[in-house]
């Protein structure tokens, strides 16, 4: 049973991690807690089923398309809601982010309705839906393996982009010191747009995976996921991409084990308790660096 709980927790944790990296990247670059990120995740899921149902696009191209759309939406949100406030006090941008989040949620309710909607079962390959592998005492479904594979691939890709590409180097430079980065000839706005696009497309994948896994998506799903991913990002050390990945997995496993062994009534509480404990002991999070305020 323990192994089974661990695997289930891992599935949940990897999805949290995928959303959390979007949060943490934006924070790393412009120090904004982007509360609208949870809504991007929700939009990703809805766009994907809309492409499948209304346009008859197969699953994988639909995923790619909704990633592209969410990337564009992320960039668009930054342009109209956050960019004009770049020089304003940070609180203004934070409040704007909450406003954007509420706005997107309501738009989704107008378009797709307020009831939960099933994911398009027919579009999901049968291998995922019905295959169950038994490894000792553990049942792992094809879909869970798919989630492991996709999330791992995404995170490896992300790590490569951040560490091996020019734009990744620019992102890291910006995270360290935006003024110096600009002086070195980095196009700050373009890098920020790229960060939003990257984070939002990962958020979209997370939304789609959750939709496939639970077979339910709803206009309000972004809020809870957003809070969890935020907690994961803080747990890992906000601003740190590997930290967000680790934080997501730790949070997912902690919640699952907590619900399995302690009490299901306190599952959310237990997840946050772990977060609080870590922050009390390591204020910068698991993998965060304790650096002074940015100049």
């Amino acid at each position: 049973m323990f192994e089974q709980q661990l695997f289930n927790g891992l599935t949940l944790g990897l999805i949290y991690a995928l959303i959390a990296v979007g949060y943490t990247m934006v924070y790393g670059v412009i120090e904004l807690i982007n509360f609208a990120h949870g809504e991007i995740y929700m939009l990703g899921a809805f766009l994907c089923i809309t492409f499948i149902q209304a346009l008859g696009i197969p699953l994988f191209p639909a995923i790619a398309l909704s990633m592209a759309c969410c990337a564009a939406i992320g960039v668009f949100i930054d342009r109209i809601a956050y960019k004009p406030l770049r020089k304003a006090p940070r609180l203004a941008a934070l409040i704007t982010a909450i406003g954007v989040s509420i706005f997107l949620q309501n738009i989704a309710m107008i378009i797709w309705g307020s009831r939960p909607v099933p994911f398009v079962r027919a579009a999901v390959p049968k291998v995922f839906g019905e295959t169950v592998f038994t490894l000792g005492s553990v049942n792992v479904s094809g879909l869970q393996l798919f989630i492991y594979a996709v999330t791992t691939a995404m995170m490896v890709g992300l790590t490569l982009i951040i560490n091996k590409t020019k734009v990744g180097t620019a992102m890291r430079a910006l995270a360290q010191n935006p003024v110096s980065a600009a002086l070195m000839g980095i196009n700050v706005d373009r890098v920020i747009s790229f960060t939003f696009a990257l984070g939002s497309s990962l958020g979209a994948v997370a939304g789609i995976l959750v939709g496939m896994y639970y077979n339910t998506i709803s206009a309000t799903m972004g809020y809870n996921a957003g809070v969890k991913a935020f907690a994961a990002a803080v747990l890992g050390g906000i601003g740190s991409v590997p930290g967000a990945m680790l934080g997501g997995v730790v949070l997912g496993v902690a919640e699952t084990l907590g619900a399995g062994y302690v009490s299901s009534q306190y599952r959310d509480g237990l997840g946050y308790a772990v977060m609080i404990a870590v922050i009390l002991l390591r204020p910068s999070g698991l993998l965060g660096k304790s650096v002074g305020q940015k100049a």
Partner: protein
Amino acid sequence: MKFKHGLVVALAMAAFLAVGNLVLAADVIKIAVPTPLTGPAAGYGDNVKAGVAMKIEEINAKGGVNGKKIEAVYFDEQCDPKEAATVGTKIAGDKDLVAIVGHLCSGAHLAALPNYLRAGVAALSPTATNVNISEKGKDAKGQTWSFRNVYRDDFQGVFLADYMAKALGLKKVAVFFANSDYGIGLKDAFLKQAKANGLTIVGEEAYQEKSTDFTPQLTKIKGMAPEALFIAGYYAEGSLIADQAKKLGMDVPKFGADGLDNADYIKLAGPAGDNTYLTTPFLAETAGPEAKAFIDAYKAKFKRDVDWMSANAYDAAGMVIEAISKVGPDRAKVREYLAAINTKDKAYKGITGLTYFNDKGDCEKPAYVKMVKGGQFVPAEKQMTK
């Protein structure tokens, strides 16, 4: 000059309209129908609206009540207690509204009730099942102003415990309950009766509404091999529990009350929804000939299958209108009339069977069991009448 002329015409028209309204007002009797028309519960509200509308149309087609047409005035309270309290004040203050068919949600009904007690207007809910309503419907003089033609949550819990043990002979059951008034009330009643029936409860798992992941609880329960899952909650989470249980290899029958009773449950749970048993106060297949006529007319009018909420709302509107036709459009007298329907002999004969109230305004309604089979609701093979 032109402007003056226009003004005169406008004034004349306004006067004409006002007179017209006066004449009209004298010709209609209004009843209030507070129900969610927008928001997450709007789907349910629509069902209630359909039932009430059908009853009123039928009465008006026969010439109305004592020569006057009946008119329903709908109030949107979004199933939200705060909105319901506001709407309740409005309804209580409008003396033209003779009686109330509503509210739909228990929380909304409880929130609006104090207004109705104070103003002295009777409310008959077709759908609110919460236990607390029984105690909150009386004014200082001990008169009941709140009625309902639906059974209570605890009745459903007890009924399901009996059904599992006596009709299906199950022995080991796991319980999932929403951490809300509804879920806890239902679960408590179920557990008490289940223990009396000798059912073994393996696992009592609470969850927050809007949760999506139930695998930890299900994994834990799976080791104890329950023969059935009882889900005391709503369909959004219930369908996920069913689906995840099946994915973990637990293909057992599921049981639930009215909270699971929604076509969306089947849509969301997919094949895992099969073998779910639900209590319902109205089963089209076992209903009498009058009900059959209602079902056919409903389908023709709304292009969808009838649901229990519409049937209950149809009867609730019927009772209120009957009261008005007997005692006239008087708030206090309507209440007296409804309160006097207190024995089986005096019961109102509607399409959902005989309805009569106890001194708390609660009715005793039989429950039927329906189940999901092949992705559709069908009557369960075994029914149980108490």
